[in-house]
C-alpha cells in the first residue's frame, strides 16, 4: 500500500469534510433557519460526498488491482519517539465499498427524513445529528490506523446516542440512548486494549504496518494473537449488537424511524463486520478466536431470529432481524468468508433500508402507531410501502432472484466448506433462514393483509409524498436486483474487487454440489417459513390469537428477549449502584478520616485546656514565666 498508488486518495478528506461541514454550518446558523435551507444543507452535504465517493470509485475501477488503494496524510498527529500516529486516511476497495453504502444509502435516508420529520419542531437538530452520524461513520471506515478507527468508533457511538435520544424529553428515549452509549463504551475499551497490545508488541498502530508485522510480531495462533482478536471482537460485538452485547439495539428503536434505518442498514451495526474484515490478517493468525467469532455470530443469528418471531412492534421485528442478519455476516467473517460477509452487508443495506423506510411510511400514515396489532389490510392504502416491504421480505427470506438469496446462500455454501464447525454453523444458518422467512412474512401479513383493525381506520392512512416514496422505491429496486453483482457459478465481481484489502483470504470456495444443495435446502426452509406465517397470520385475528397462545411459557421467554436485560440488571447494574451508594454513605460518615477527626478533637481539646491558662491574671502569667525559666535553667544545668 504505497502512498502514490491511488492518486485520488486525498479526495477522502473532502468526503469526510462535507458532512462535517454540513453539520457545523447547520448547527451554527443563528436563529431558526428556514426548512428549505436545512433540507438543502442536510441532504446536500451527504449527497455531494456520495458524488465524490462515486468519482473515487470510478478512478479505482480504471486502475489495475494493485493501484486501487492509497493513503493520504494531513499531518503528524503526535510523535512520542517510540510511537508515531499520523492523521491519515486509507482509501482502498473495502473502504470505498463501505463509503458508497454509507453516503449512498445515507443520503437516501436523509432525503426521506425531510418529509418524515416535517412535523418535528426541532427540524434543524435532526439534520445536524444525521450529518454528524454520517461523518462519524466515514471516519471509522477511512481511518488508516487503529487510533482513528477508535476515534471514529466512539464518534459513531456519540452520534447514535444523540439520535436514539433524539426525543430527549421522553424518559424511555433517554434511557435507551444511555444504554447504547454505555455498551458502546465497553466496546471502545475492548478496542483500546487491543491497541495497547499492538503498541506493546509491534510498536505501531498503522494498519499497513500492523498487518505487515503481525505474522512475525504476534505469531500464528499464539496467546497474544488470540487476545488481540478477542479484544477487537469485544469492540465489534458491541457495535454490531452481537450476543452478549446486543441489548442496546432493540431499545434503540426509541429514535425516529429514519435513524433506525441509518443505524441498521447503512452505518453503525455493520462497523463490527467491517472491523473483522479489515483485520482479516489478525483473525487468520487467531484460529480459535475466529471460530469463536463464527459461533457467536451463529448463536446471535438464531437467538435474535427466535425473538423476532414474537415481537408486536413493527420496528422491533426489524431490529431483531438486523441483529440476526448481522449474525450471518459475523459468522461468515469468523469462518474466513470475508467477501461473502461484505456481500451480505451490501444486500442487507439495501433490503433493510427499504424495509425500515417502508415501515416508516406505515408509522407516518398511522400517526406514530407501531403495533402490528393495530395494523392490517394496509396493502389497499399504502401501495408503495406494501411493494417495498414485499420486495424486502422476499430478499431477506432468500427467494431468488431477490438480492438476499445470493448473499445468504454464498455464506451458507461457503460455511459447508469450512470444516466441521462450518457444517454445524451452516445448519444453524439454515434454521435461521427458515425463522427469518417466518417472522418477516408474519410482519407482511399482519400489517398489509387481513382485515383492518377494529373494523377500519379512523382516518384513511394517507400515502406519503415523493420525498419519502422515491428513496423507498430506489432501495426496493436495489434490494431486488442488488444480488446480481455476484452470482453463484457465474461471477464473483465483489470478491475480485475486495481482493487487495483482504490479503489473508483463506480462499474458501464452495463446490458446485454444495452450492446446489444449499440452494435447494434454503429454498425449502424459506418456503416452510412463509407457509407457516401464512397458516398462522394470513387469516383473521381470531385464529391468529388462538394459535399464538400455544406454548405460553416459550412465548413469554421470547417476549422477554431471552431475559438478557434482567440478568444484566441483577448481576451488574444493581450491585454497582449499591456499591456506589455505600461509598457515598461511607464518605458522608467520614470513614477513612479517623486520624483527621482525631487530630481535630485533640487540637480542640488542647486549645480548651490552654485557653483556661489565659485567664487574664498577671500573677498567673508571672508564675508561668518563672516556671518556664526554671525548667529551661534546670535543663541547661542537667545537660551540661
Amino acid at each position, binding site marked *: 500500500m504505497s502512498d502514490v498508488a491511488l492518486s485520488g486518495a486525498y479526495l477522502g478528506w473532502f468526503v469526510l469534510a462535507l458532512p462535517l461541514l454540513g453539520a457545523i454550518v447547520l*448547527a451554527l446558523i443563528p436563529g431558526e433557519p428556514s426548512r428549505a435551507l436545512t433540507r438543502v444543507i442536510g441532504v446536500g452535504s451527504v449527497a455531494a460526498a456520495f458524488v465524490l465517493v462515486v468519482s473515487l470509485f470510478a478512478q479505482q475501477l480504471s486502475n489495475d488491482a494493485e493501484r486501487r488503494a492509497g493513503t493520504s496524510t494531513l*499531518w*503528524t*498527529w*503526535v*510523535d*512520542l*519517539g*517510540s*510511537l508515531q500516529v499520523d*492523521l491519515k486516511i486509507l482509501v482502498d476497495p473495502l473502504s470505498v465499498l463501505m463509503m458508497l453504502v454509507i453516503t449512498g444509502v445515507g443520503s437516501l435516508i436523509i432525503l426521506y427524513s425531510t418529509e418524515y420529520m416535517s412535523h418535528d419542531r426541532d427540524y434543524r*437538530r435532526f439534520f445536524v445529528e444525521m450529518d454528524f452520524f454520517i461523518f462519524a461513520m466515514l471516519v471509522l471506515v477511512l481511518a488508516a490506523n487503529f*487510533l482513528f478507527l*477508535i*476515534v471514529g*468508533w*466512539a*464518534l459513531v*457511538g*456519540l452520534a447514535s446516542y444523540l439520535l436514539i*435520544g433524539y426525543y*430527549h*424529553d421522553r*424518559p424511555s428515549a*433517554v434511557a435507551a*440512548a*444511555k444504554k447504547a*452509549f*454505555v455498551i458502546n*463504551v*465497553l466496546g*471502545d*475499551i475492548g478496542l*483500546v*486494549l487491543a*491497541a*495497547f*497490545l499492538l*503498541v*506493546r508488541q509491534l510498536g505501531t498502530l498503522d494498519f499497513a504496518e500492523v498487518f505487515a508485522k503481525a505474522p512475525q510480531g504476534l505469531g500464528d495462533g499464539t496467546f497474544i494473537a488470540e487476545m488481540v482478536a478477542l479484544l477487537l471482537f469485544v469492540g465489534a460485538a458491541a457495535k454490531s449488537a452481537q450476543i452478549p452485547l446486543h441489548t442496546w439495539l432493540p431499545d434503540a428503536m426509541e429514535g425516529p424511524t429514519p435513524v433506525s434505518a441509518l443505524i441498521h442498514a447503512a452505518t453503525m451495526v455493520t462497523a463490527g463486520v467491517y472491523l473483522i474484515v479489515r483485520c482479516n490478517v489478525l483473525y487468520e493468525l487467531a484460529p480459535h478466536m475466529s471460530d469463536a467469532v463464527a459461533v457467536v455470530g451463529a448463536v446471535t443469528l438464531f437467538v435474535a431470529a427466535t425473538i423476532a418471531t414474537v415481537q408486536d412492534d413493527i420496528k422491533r421485528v426489524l431490529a431483531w432481524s438486523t441483529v440476526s442478519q448481522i449474525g450471518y455476516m459475523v459468522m461468515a467473517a469468523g469462518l474466513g468468508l470475508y467477501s461473502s460477509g461484505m456481500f451480505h452487508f451490501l444486500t442487507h443495506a439495501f433490503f433493510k433500508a427499504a424495509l425500515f423506510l417502508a415501515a416508516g411510511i406505515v408509522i407516518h400514515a398511522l400517526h406514530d402507531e407501531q403495533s402490528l396489532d393495530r395494523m392490517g389490510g394496509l396493502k389497499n392504502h399504502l401501495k408503495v410501502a406494501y411493494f417495498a416491504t414485499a420486495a424486502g421480505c422476499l430478499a431477506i427470506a432468500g427467494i431468488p432472484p431477490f438480492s438476499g438469496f445470493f448473499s445468504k446462500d454464498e455464506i451458507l455454501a461457503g460455511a459447508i466448506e469450512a470444516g466441521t464447525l462450518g457444517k454445524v454453523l451452516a445448519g444453524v444458518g439454515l434454521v435461521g433462514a427458515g425463522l427469518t422467512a417466518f417472522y418477516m412474512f408474519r410482519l407482511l401479513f399482519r400489517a398489509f393483509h387481513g382485515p383492518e383493525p377494529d373494523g377500519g381506520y379512523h382516518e384513511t392512512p394517507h400515502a406519503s409524498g415523493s420525498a419519502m416514496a422515491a428513496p423507498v422505491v430506489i432501495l426496493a429496486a436495489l434490494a431486488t436486483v442488488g444480488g446480481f453483482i455476484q452470482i453463484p457459478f457465474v461471477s464473483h465481481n465483489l470478491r475480485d474487487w475486495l481482493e487487495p484489502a483482504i490479503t489473508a483470504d483463506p480462499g474458501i470456495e464452495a463446490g458446485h454440489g454444495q452450492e446446489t444443495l444449499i440452494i435447494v435446502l434454503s429454498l425449502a426452509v424459506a418456503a416452510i417459513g412463509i407457509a407457516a406465517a401464512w397458516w398462522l397470520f394470513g387469516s383473521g385475528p381470531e385464529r391468529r390469537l388462538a394459535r399464538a397462545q400455544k406454548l405460553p411459557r416459550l412465548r413469554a421467554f421470547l417476549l422477554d428477549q431471552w431475559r438478557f436485560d434482567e440478568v444484566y440488571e441483577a448481576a451488574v447494574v444493581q450491585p*454497582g*449502584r449499591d*456499591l*456506589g*451508594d455505600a*461509598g*457515598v454513605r461511607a*464518605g458522608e460518615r*467520614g470513614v*477513612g*478520616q479517623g486520624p*483527621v477527626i482525631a*487530630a*481535630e478533637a485533640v*487540637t480542640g481539646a488542647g486549645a480548651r485546656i490552654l485557653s483556661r491558662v489565659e485567664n487574664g491574671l498577671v500573677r498567673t502569667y508571672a508564675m508561668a514565666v518563672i516556671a518556664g525559666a526554671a525548667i529551661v535553667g534546670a535543663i541547661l544545668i542537667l545537660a551540661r
Partner: protein
Amino acid sequence: MPWVTAIILLPLAGALSMLAVPPGGVVQARVHAFLTAGGTLALTAILVGLFDRDAAGPQYEDRHGWATQVGLEWTVNVDGVSIWLVALTSAIFFLAITYACFRTPERARGFLGLLLLAEAGLLGLFAAGNLVLFYVFWEAMLVPFYFLIGMWGGSDRVRATTRFVIYTMAGSLLMLVAILGTAFVGREITGQFTFDMEALRGIDFTRNESIWLFAGFAIAFIIKLPLWPFHGWMPGAYRNAPILVTVLLAAVMSKAGVYGLIKIGVPLFPEGAEYFQYHIIVMALAGIAYGSVVAWRQPTLRMLVAYSSLAHLGFVALGIMAFDNEAGQGAVLQMVNHGVVVAAAFTIVGIITARSGREDIDDLGGLANGAPWLAGVFLIVAMASLAMPGTNAFVGEFFILTGVFRHHWWAAALACIGIAYAAVYMLRLYQSSMNGPRKGADGARVEMRLRDTVVLLPLIAAMGLIALWPAAIVGATTGTVERLMAPAQIAAGRPADQIRAGVAANPPEAALPLPGDPVEAQQEVPAQ
C-alpha cells in the same frame, strides 16, 4: 528579560496593588485584577512562543543569590513539563478573574487580591528550581485558598477549611523535613550544600535514604493530589468553596501534587520511587475505582464533578508512576487536559446551580429545551470529561495507558473500569439535568450568557486544538520527560532501549567540597 520572574511577580504586584484601591472601589479592583492577570497571560504566551521545544533541561532560568552559603536562592525556570503548567495556571486564572470581574462577590478587593495571590503562588510553585523556593510557594498558595474558602465559602466552610489545612500541613511538614534531609544527606555525598533541583539530580543516595526521602515528599504530594485514601479534605473543600474557587482548586491546585511527583519525587529519588511504585499504582487504581463509583451516586452536580476529578487525577498519577516515557508524556498532557476540562465542567455546574437554585441532580431536568447552546457545550465537556476518543482527554489517557500497559498490563486493564464508569456518571450528570421532562427551572434561565461564553469558548477551543493537534504540547515534552524518567527507569531495571536519556554522575569525579561550606557541626541527618 527575566521572563519567568516577571510572570511570577506580576500577579503578586497586582495583589499588592489592591491595597492602593480604596474600600468599595469595585471598578478599580476589577481593572487592577484584569490587567495584571491579562498581562501575566500575555507574558506566558510570549514565553511559550520563545520556548525551545526540543531542549530537555530547564530554560529561561533566573538565578539570584540570597543566602547562597546555606543554599537559599531565587531560582526559577521552566522546562518541558512546567511550561505547560505555567501556561495552564495563567490561562485558567485569567479566565477565572475575568469571570469574577463580570460578577464580583462582596468585598471585591479582597477576593480579587487573594485570587492574584493564589496565582502568584502557583506560578512560583511550577517555576521553582529550588526545593526551598518550592516549599515556600507550596505553603504560600495555601494561605489565599484558606481565606477564599473561609470567607466566601458555603455553610460548612469552617470545618472544610480546618480539614483542608490540617491535611495539607501534615503533608507539608513532612516535606520540609525531607527537603532539609535531602540537602544534608546530599552534602555528605557531593560535598555541596544545595537545594537546587538541578544540582541534586543524579545523587547516588543509599536505598534507605532514597526510600525515606521519597516518602517524605510523596505523602505531601499524595495529599495534595489527592489520592485515595488521603482525599478526606477534598469533598468539604470542593463543596464549600465558592464555585469559582472550586474551579481553581480542581483545575490548577490539584496539579501541584502530580507536578511534585514527576518533577521532584521520581527524578531525585529513583530508588525510593521504585520502592513505592506499586503502592502508589494501587492507590491510584483504588482512587479511579472509588472516585468513579462514588461519583456515579453523588446527589449533587458539584460533588459528582468533584469525585470524577479524583478519578481523573488517579490516571495522571498512574502515568507518572509507570516510569514510562509515553505514559509520562501522556500524564503531562493529561494535567493540562484535566485542568481545561474540569474548569469547564465546574463552570457549567456553577451556571446551572446558580440560576436554577438547585444543587441536586434529581431536582433538575429538561433544561436542554430552553438552553440549546448550554446543552451543546455541556455535551462537549461531558464527552471530554469521560475521555471519549476524539476528545483531548482521550489523547492523554490513551498515552498514559499505552505506557502503563507496556509494563503493568493489569493496571491498565483495571483502569479501564474507570473509563466505563466515567461514561455512566457523566451521562447521569448530563442527561438528568439536560434531558427528560422539565424539572426545577426553565431552560431559558440557565442559557449561556455573554460572560459564560467568554469563559467557556476559549476552553472549548483549547480542547479542540489539543484533540486535533496534541503534538503542540506533547512534542515539547519529549526531552524533559525522558530526562525526568531516566533515573527511575534505571532503578527499575528497564531494558536499555527504553531509556532515552543519560544520568550524569553526581558528584562528578573532579568535584571538591566548596570552600564556603557552612558550619561543620550540622551533621545530624533528620531522615534516616
